[in-house]
């Protein structure tokens, strides 16, 4: 490779994780890094998900980095625009812009063992990049895809995916079909019924719906948080431990799970009068097994005169609409697919070639695994954010992400400070870790029998962390070098590095 630029760190992805990693790298004194972002703006999931009603279902106080506090959150659960504003403000505040390379689609990475460098292949004419370490911050929720429904190509109306919203399309007076009833759908539907002539909601599986009490933040509170940061930190802690306690019912299948279900049932009874509609909306799996839905507006929206819940299986799409198995063609001017993302539970988002030519996608073909979700044996100096088994079911993803970032910055600091060729996690430690994780997963709600995007088709859970967020954070608090093969750079490595770059 010629004219390749050698970075200390290549951060792949400019979403929450990439920005957070960049901030912490800078705070650690590491400046020779780049954020490689395929889009033209920062923000990742929050840049892409701009559908009407898009909001976070974790309180903003907790859905933000503790090292980049924001006293100005306007409400308990902020909308996507405000969250995106927060991400952009962090980029400005920590002067990250010079580090960002937009339109930079990484097509694969491979490890040069002699030089102790990762070759980062970039689509198009962009200058190739080599890096001592790579942070794969591409995120699990970054690839939106239309579902595999028969005849989808024959539909002649307008198609919109929730994660690629078409803001130019005017829903006023239109007949709209919404496919999916997950976290995005329950936010979109209440907005659509306000505008569209009719909204038909196609449901496959109903989820547990819990109340979401959203309040505007009092100006006095904002002022307090601005002037007394400790007060904000305290509020964040309160939210954190509040959510931690929910784990007892949501992460593990316990009597408290019934309590969560009771709250869900009470919400259903309070908001839905018709017994058949209630039956259609009653989940047949344990609360927590699939992602919990937090909304007060969804059930009332479904019962509006211009809205209808359809639970018949979709047979196919036809030029004018959706044909369901009860033989009726539900005609629609526009179909909104709120069908989620192609979450990678097996395989990798880009080809990753590690030591001795091993290919990570092949090793992960039966389900992904890693050491503490951050590192994989055989792929030195490579760190994942939101890697395998790091998903929370009850607490803020940002808490988990922050722990991963601090861990990987510590590791990268070690690589650079000690001039290591390789920091490669030991296979036996990784295996032992995963055995424990999989054993602990058997007692969780996610593995209690439902089908969800958390599991592979074989029922392997490569997604969720079976414990409290506190446990997750604690295990990443220190970098135990005895868990790694630590290989120092020597003269030949340095020669290989020079040869590789020139």
């Amino acid at each position: 490779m010629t004219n390749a630029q050698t970075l200390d760190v290549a951060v792949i992805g400019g979403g929450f994780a990439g920005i957070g990693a960049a901030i912490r790298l800078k705070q650690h004194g590491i400046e020779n890094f780049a954020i490689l972002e395929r889009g033209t703006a920062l923000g990742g999931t929050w840049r892409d998900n701009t559908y009407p009603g898009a909001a976070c279902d974790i309180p903003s106080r907790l859905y933000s980095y503790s090292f980049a506090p924001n006293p100005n959150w306007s409400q308990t659960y902020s909308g996507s625009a405000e969250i995106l504003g927060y991400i952009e403000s962090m980029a400005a505040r920590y002067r990250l812009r010079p580090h960002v390379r937009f339109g930079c689609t990484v097509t694969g990475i491979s490890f040069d063992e002699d030089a102790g460098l990762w070759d980062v292949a970039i689509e198009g004419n962009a200058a190739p990049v080599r890096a001592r370490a790579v942070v794969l911050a591409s995120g699990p929720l970054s690839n939106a895809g239309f579902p595999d429904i028969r005849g989808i190509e024959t539909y002649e109306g307008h198609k919109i995916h929730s994660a690629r919203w078409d803001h130019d399309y005017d829903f006023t007076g239109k007949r709209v079909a919404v496919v999916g009833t997950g976290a995005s759908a329950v936010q979109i539907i209440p907005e659509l019924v306000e505008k569209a002539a009719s909204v038909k909601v196609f449901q496959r599986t109903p989820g547990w719906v819990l109340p979401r009490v959203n309040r505007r933040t009092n100006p006095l509170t904002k002022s307090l948080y601005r002037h007394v940061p400790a007060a904000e930190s305290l509020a964040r802690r309160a939210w954190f431990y509040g959510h931690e306690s929910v784990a007892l019912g949501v992460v593990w299948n316990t009597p408290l799970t019934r309590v969560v279900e009771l709250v869900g049932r009470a919400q259903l009874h309070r908001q839905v009068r018709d017994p058949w509609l209630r039956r259609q909306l009653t989940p047949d799996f344990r609360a927590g097994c699939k992602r919990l839905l937090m909304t007060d507006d969804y059930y009332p929206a479904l019962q509006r005169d211009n809205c209808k819940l359809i639970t018949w299986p979709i047979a196919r799409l036809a030029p004018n609409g959706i044909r369901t198995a009860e033989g009726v063609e539900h005609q629609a001017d526009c179909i909104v697919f709120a069908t989620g993302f192609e979450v990678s539970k097996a395989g990798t988002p880009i080809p990753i070639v590690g030591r001795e030519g091993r290919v990570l996608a092949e090793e992960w073909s039966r389900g992904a695994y890693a050491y503490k979700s951050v590192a994989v044996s055989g792929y030195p100096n490579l760190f994942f954010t939101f890697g395998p088994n790091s998903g929370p079911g009850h607490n803020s993803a940002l808490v988990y992400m922050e722990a991963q970032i601090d861990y990987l910055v510590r590791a990268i600091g070690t690589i650079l400070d000690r001039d290591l060729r390789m920091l490669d996690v030991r296979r036996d430690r990784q295996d032992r870790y995963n055995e424990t994780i999989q054993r602990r997963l058997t007692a969780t709600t996610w593995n209690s029998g439902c089908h969800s995007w958390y599991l592979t088709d074989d029922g392997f859970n490569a997604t969720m962390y079976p414990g409290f967020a506190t446990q997750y954070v604690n295990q990443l608090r220190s970098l135990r070098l005895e868990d790694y093969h630590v290989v120092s750079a020597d003269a030949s490595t340095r020669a290989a590095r020079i040869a590789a770059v020139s």
Partner: protein
Amino acid sequence: MAAIAMDFEDMLRKIKDRQWALADIDWDGPGAETITPELHARLKPFMADLMWIENVGARGFAAMAKKAPTETLREIYRYFHAEEQKHANAELALMRRWGMLEGDEIPQPNVNVKLVIDFLDKYSDDMSLSFLGTVIPMLEVALDGALVKFIMDEIEDPVCQEAFKRINADESRHLAVDFAVMDLLGHAEMRKLLIELVGGWVKPTFLIGVLSYVPLLNKMRDNIVAMGVDENKLYKALERYRNVGERSEFARRLPMYQIVKMHGGWVVNRDHPYHLLADALVKITARVPKRLLRRDPTWAKEITYEPAA
């Protein structure tokens, strides 16, 4: 004889591949004139009952979709539930084609069908799969099977023939799964089967179910006779339950199968004293005041003759 083994995955694929829609049929096509005024008068209540009987199966499958032990079977029952609704829709579309509907009116069924629907709507979600899985097949062979066959034999209208050809194909898949599941259920431990049987019988609600079910078969026989058709067609359909069920040693182990089969045997034997009770119940239920019957469940309002909505 060997068990009736079925690859349910394969069956689900088949079900998905063979979906049809109301829009696939030209409801205004020629042939409606083949229904003479005299036939029209007799056919109208018959079709109304048939359309509602589809909903008996529909409600049963809806309950079974909640109980099925595997996701594949749950999905199959979800499709069957929808297909029964499709059959009801198609039958309503035929009634409209033949000028049997006034405005948006949904014709009402006879009181016995209504009682069974009431019962299933109220209690079927609480019944076990082995219970539903043995009774629903009987209702399917006896009512759906016999009545659909009767329509195909007696009505010449080509549009009707086309619709019922499709309905029949669906029903044959329903029955294949019904019996395969009965066979599967029969693999359970006898102790479990007996517990479920006793658990099912001792419920006071079960008595309501029996009192709804018993007159239903006799009432449908009366209907068939009123249409000028040989009641043996119904009996032959009833015997099919026994004939197919007997092929599986596991289905035979199901106590509920034995009971339903025995009952079928009584129904086809017009000399059996059982008919004193059943016919009496038909007469009594006919006098049930309308206001005592529950209003139609909201799902019943979903039936439509419109191919597009």
